[in-house]
């Protein structure tokens, strides 16, 4: 695929991202169609997070273009892209550490960006019952109801990951990018997270998921894209990807390197 198809929710066309001489993304093209969970896998350093950063405008690509819902979002300001309906979580946790769990979610709600400064100044918290109810609902979904008054920094890692998800859900996005949402979690926590992602995708947004835990990826995803050295080396259904020679080579190679 070399150009953006209008029916795609998200597409990358020949995206390259260079850090100095190093190509973190190398002429990468891919498309994410609407609905369900799409996986993005690949060995460490293969450019998965870099792709998310390019999509969300944190690093604009060196060349190539990105399209979301029929719009060119290449090089747009990060907050504009968020306002268009893309939400994400961060692999290296970026919760608002000294705010409470509740405020993390409340403040992230979609309408915040559509308000004028005056509306924002006079939108005093206690008069926002519907908003607060939505926050409660989201906290319940991710299982953080009991923790609503804790400061985000006091949560253990697993809960911080769920808070990141809650904050992204508060945006009511069309496209949800999850960067290793189960990273560092225990097997039980991972199962809970997998179920949660399944439910989230069922209920609304298209989920684009980076994850190393293969069991979870294979179970959740209808389509998987595999990166290695910033290039797409395979894509297809979980079955197709699992039996792909290039994928086996990339993973075995990386296992051998890390061993």
């Amino acid at each position, binding site marked *: 695929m070399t150009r953006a198809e209008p029916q795609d929710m998200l597409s990358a066309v020949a995206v390259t991202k260079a850090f100095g001489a190093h190509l973190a993304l190398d002429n990468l093209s891919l498309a994410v169609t609407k609905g369900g969970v799409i996986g993005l896998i690949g060995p460490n350093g293969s450019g998965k997070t870099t792709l998310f950063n390019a999509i969300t405008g944190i690093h604009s690509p060196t060349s190539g273009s990105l399209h979301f819902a029929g719009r060119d979002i290449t090089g747009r*300001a990060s*907050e504009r892209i968020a306002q268009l309906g893309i939400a994400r979580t961060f692999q290296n946790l*970026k919760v*608002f550490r000294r705010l*409470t769990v509740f*405020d993390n979610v409340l*403040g992230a709600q979609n309408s915040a960006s559509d308000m004028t400064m005056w509306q*924002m100044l006079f939108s005093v918290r206690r008069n926002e019952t519907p908003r607060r109810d939505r926050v409660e609902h989201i906290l319940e979904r991710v299982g953080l109801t009991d923790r609503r008054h*804790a*400061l985000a920094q006091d949560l253990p890692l697993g809960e911080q990951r769920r808070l990141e998800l809650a904050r992204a859900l508060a945006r009511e996005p069309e496209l949800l990018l999850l960067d290793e949402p189960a990273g560092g979690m225990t097997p039980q926590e991972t199962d809970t997270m997998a179920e949660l992602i399944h439910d989230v995708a069922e209920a609304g947004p298209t989920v684009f998921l980076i994850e190393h835990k293969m069991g979870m990826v294979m179970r959740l995803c209808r389509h998987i894209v595999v990166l290695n050295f910033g290039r797409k080396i395979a894509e297809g259904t979980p079955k197709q990807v699992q039996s792909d020679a290039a994928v086996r080579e990339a993973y075995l190679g990386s296992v051998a390197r890390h061993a």
Partner: protein
Amino acid sequence: MAYWYTVISLMCINTILAWSVYSSFMTGTVSLGQAGFFAIGAFASASLTAIYGWHIVPATMMGAVAAAIVGLAIAIPTLRLKGLYLTIATVAFVEVIRVVFHNIKYGRDGEFAIDASSADARQMPWIGPDGPLGFRHIIYLTEHHITPGEYAMWLVLLVIAFGVYFWVLERSRLGFAMRAVEEDEIAAQGVGLSHNFLKVFAFAIGAAIAGVAGSLYAHLLTFITGDDFNIPLTVMMLAYVVIGGGQTFWGPILGALIFTLLPEIARETKEFRLELFGIAMLATMVFRQHGLITRDMVRRAETRIKTAFTGRNTIGPDEPGAPAPNPTKK
């Protein structure tokens, strides 16, 4: 008594200055430029009242506007830089402003000699900044028969007004947005908040607030020079916030009050003012990183007050004042 009115006025001015630092502090920006905005507000408003005969209220507003415009001119190019560069740029700005007001001369001749008995009795005083001699004869208050007590009262009212602004701000979505930018710019952008816009806005408001303080100061002192607005002063303003606490608007009040009152109450300390500052700053860094008043303390106090007023704990489950279920808070 008049002396204490002056002390009260100075406490008010220093509180307003501390809040001017706090405004951009809320978005994680450390400004060392407040003395510059303070000077702009002082010279601009004093020029309007003394040279052109304006009323003090519009003159003060114009001082604030002038400071805000200069604040925008500084913030827009420099806030894109990461924290430290901005801080350095703001220090340089203070020095530039000081030198400008140290050398500038404009204005008009006064109508009558201030002191007929002095040697140069026939010479009319210069109304307006006069280079290194400074801007003398800002006699608006005497001309309009405003007593030190009345002036102090107006200043207290103004402090309350600014306090209400910050109280509302901290509880509003805008306040959340600023805190989110302070916590993590990338994550704030991720939830659709423009960190550039919020930082520039908070910085410009801070500049305007310092401009207001400048006007109040000039009219209180009646005599200002460029050298009054120096780097030690700008560091002191930051210290009010750091020592008092930069997590809520209550902290800067306490910081400003302590360091205005201390030299008045314990006269011996006046001489060692800067040294005391240094020690207090160090002690804060070591023992109370978040300053004397923290957000947690304010929350607990609010809960207690609410409980006292209603006789029972009416804090809803989602109120920020309700006790956190986990006791591991810092």
